[in-house]
């Protein structure tokens, strides 16, 4: 499953939890960490358990637990280990915390996906090491707010200060063949700003974006969905490959442009995202 949007839902908000599956996001991240004040941690765990055992829906559900350096890390894991969820978001991810989480999941035989949230300088610089710890990891998530705090950088709407971080997360993710999730855009009213920010992230190579406002979901979904023109082009590439293979050609040109393996791979990825991928395409690059 490729997630274009992962929407944060506060774990202590019954109204939001109840409606979380109808807000259009590909997946939701039920938050037990920052959205929940310290005195409410226990109540939130109980509420989330009640919600997940009462409401059934097809939307992918991740839970952001509290970090390893908090007193709640293992309490959270104990509370959610038997729930029917898709996976876990690990905040302040680093080699140590990811290793501890992997250890816990192995001990408890948990078949859950993991998304490490990279939001510290050390996490960023060891991003590749983190993703190599576990095959449960399906994507890396850049948390720019905490990261810029750690870096002593000024957080701006233009996001120049996180270009390196974005690229580093993208590179580590692509190296492992997993998704790269961009940081949320925090101005809930600025839809134009959201579009620019999402485009910047997508152009760098992000494959999805985390979201803190349901109002952002539709726009981001749209931007991470292939356009009709992109799908048409990818299908033409595929047809070109088929024809070239039949003729025994290694490379070929389409509309005046040389088509080689990276372009073919990109076309196939795009068709996977759009739902137009066919099994027969598996053979094309062999």
């Amino acid at each position, binding site marked *: 499953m490729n997630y274009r949007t992962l929407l944060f839902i506060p774990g202590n908000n019954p109204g939001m939890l*109840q*409606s979380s599956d*109808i*807000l*259009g996001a590909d997946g939701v991240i039920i938050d037990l960490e920052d959205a929940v004040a310290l005195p409410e941690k226990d109540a939130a765990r109980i509420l989330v358990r009640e919600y997940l055992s*009462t409401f059934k829906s097809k939307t992918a559900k991740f839970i952001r637990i509290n970090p390893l350096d908090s007193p709640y890390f293992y309490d959270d894991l104990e509370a959610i280990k038997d729930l029917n969820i898709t996976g876990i978001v690990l905040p302040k991810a680093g080699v140590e915390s990811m290793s501890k989480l992997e250890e816990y999941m192995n001990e408890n035989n948990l078949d859950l996906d993991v998304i490490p949230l990279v939001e510290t300088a050390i996490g960023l610089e060891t991003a590749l090491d983190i993703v190599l710890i576990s095959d449960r990891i399906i994507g890396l998530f850049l948390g720019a707010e905490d990261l810029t705090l750690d870096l002593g950088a000024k957080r701006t709407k233009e996001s120049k200060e996180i270009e390196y971080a974005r690229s580093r997360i993208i590179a580590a993710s692509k190296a492992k063949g997993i998704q790269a999730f961009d940081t949320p855009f925090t101005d809930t009213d600025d839809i134009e700003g959201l579009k620019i920010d999402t485009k910047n992230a997508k152009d760098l190579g992000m494959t999805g974006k985390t979201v803190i*406002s*349901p*109002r952002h979901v*539709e726009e981001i979904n749209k931007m991470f969905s292939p356009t009709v023109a992109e799908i048409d082009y990818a299908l033409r590439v595929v047809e070109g490959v088929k024809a070239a293979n039949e003729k025994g050609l290694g490379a070929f040109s389409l509309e005046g442009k040389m088509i080689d393996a990276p372009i073919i791979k990109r076309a196939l990825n795009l068709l996977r995202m759009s739902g137009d991928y066919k099994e027969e395409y598996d053979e094309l690059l062999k």
Partner: protein
Amino acid sequence: MNYLNNTDLSTVKVLNKSEFPSKSKAKDKVINSVEELIKGLDLKDNAVVSFHHHLRNGDSVLNTIMKEIQSKGIKGITLVASSLFPVHAEIIPLLKDGTIENIVTSYISGDLAKAISYGELKGKIIMQTHGGRARSILDEDIVIDVAFIASPSSDKFGNISGVNGHNSCGTLGYAIADSIKAKTVISVTDALVEYPNYPADITEDYVDQVLVIDSIGRKEGIVSGTTRVTKDPIGLKIAKDTLKVMEATGLLKDGLSFQSGAGGISLAVTDYLRDYMIENNIKGSFASGGITGYLTGMLEEGLFSSLFDVQCFDLEAIESLKRNPNHIRMSGSQYGNPRVSSVVDNLDIVILGATEIDVDFNVNVTSGADGVLMGGSGGHADTAAGSKVSIIVSKLFSSRIPLIKDRVDVITTPGTTVDVLVTERGICVNPLRTDLIESFKKANLNIIDIKDLKEYAENIMGKAKPIEKTGRIIGLSEYRDGSIIDYIYEVKK
């Protein structure tokens, strides 16, 4: 004009020179004292007096006049007010002492509504629609003795304008029938302006007296600064799905006519519709009803060629009414009187709310989940009946109470005129509208049987407890044509 039947005109009396009329004089209509006015009107017990609600929760005219009537010891008044708001709780003592015996209105909320639900009105309450009110007055089902017309501005001869004066409220559409039919018409103003006061909503030829008082109300209660689209994600989801429903009806094309309310979800629908019309280059015919800045903006963008305005909801609407000739005043009768040609009959789509809806698509916007009066039809039943497609937009739960019932507490709008329900968990179509079911299926919309949606909601929230009533009927829900569609019962305290 009996002369026309007179075969011999020589028998008709002609005035003598001494009997010839003198030059006419402008009538002196101004009076500066409420007490003097009421004394002069010589109201009797059981009189019928009327008020409009364009000053909404900022109105102080109704309270001022009714208290004066009370002080004169007049009893058994039938109060015909187009709507009553929380500010009118001041007249609760007048129910108890018998000054007010019956109430006829189209909307009632606040403590006055509670008092009536708990049985404090000695007579009856009749809940009408806006169009039905105009019909009943113009057809003289209701005969008004005195209409007190709160006037944001008036000249001394009674030209009343809703757009002039510091307490401007916009159009005065709901007061037109009263001004035409009441035996006596009083303009009540706190802004006496130079003659002639134009544009006039009600002209001097209909007005008998002009009462000047210190204040007709509080501006902040009359209109909101600017009405705003909801930011609630569930409301926005419902609005988005409503746009899909509207698209699937096939009515979103040139010549579209549209009405929606000023509630958050309705405004969001209007906002999405605007984007859709721009994107698809659609030029609508008219939008109608209570008018907001969103609709005046669409008028200025050329998305609608005109607005029919029975009530201005915000300051932007008032400003537009003042300067844009395509922003047209309409009376309650032109809006929804079922006996005549009215705007609602030309509506393509109307977006409406609901407190409750039942499995037969009957809608209640009259009473709340506790059975206490907290609203009324307004134009709900009028527009549902007249429009090609009436769409109810609502959340499936409100404060943990499911929206869909086996039977609504009070039927405001009969299910036979309600076509579609849009909630965050699915779209229900009235089985009577097989044409819509067909179109929606083609459009791949998520259609759910209303009974299944009710069951889904009850599985999560449980069934609401039945409302405790005393069994005494305290009023009637009157349909727009004057027929009765439901009883209103006293609620146990």
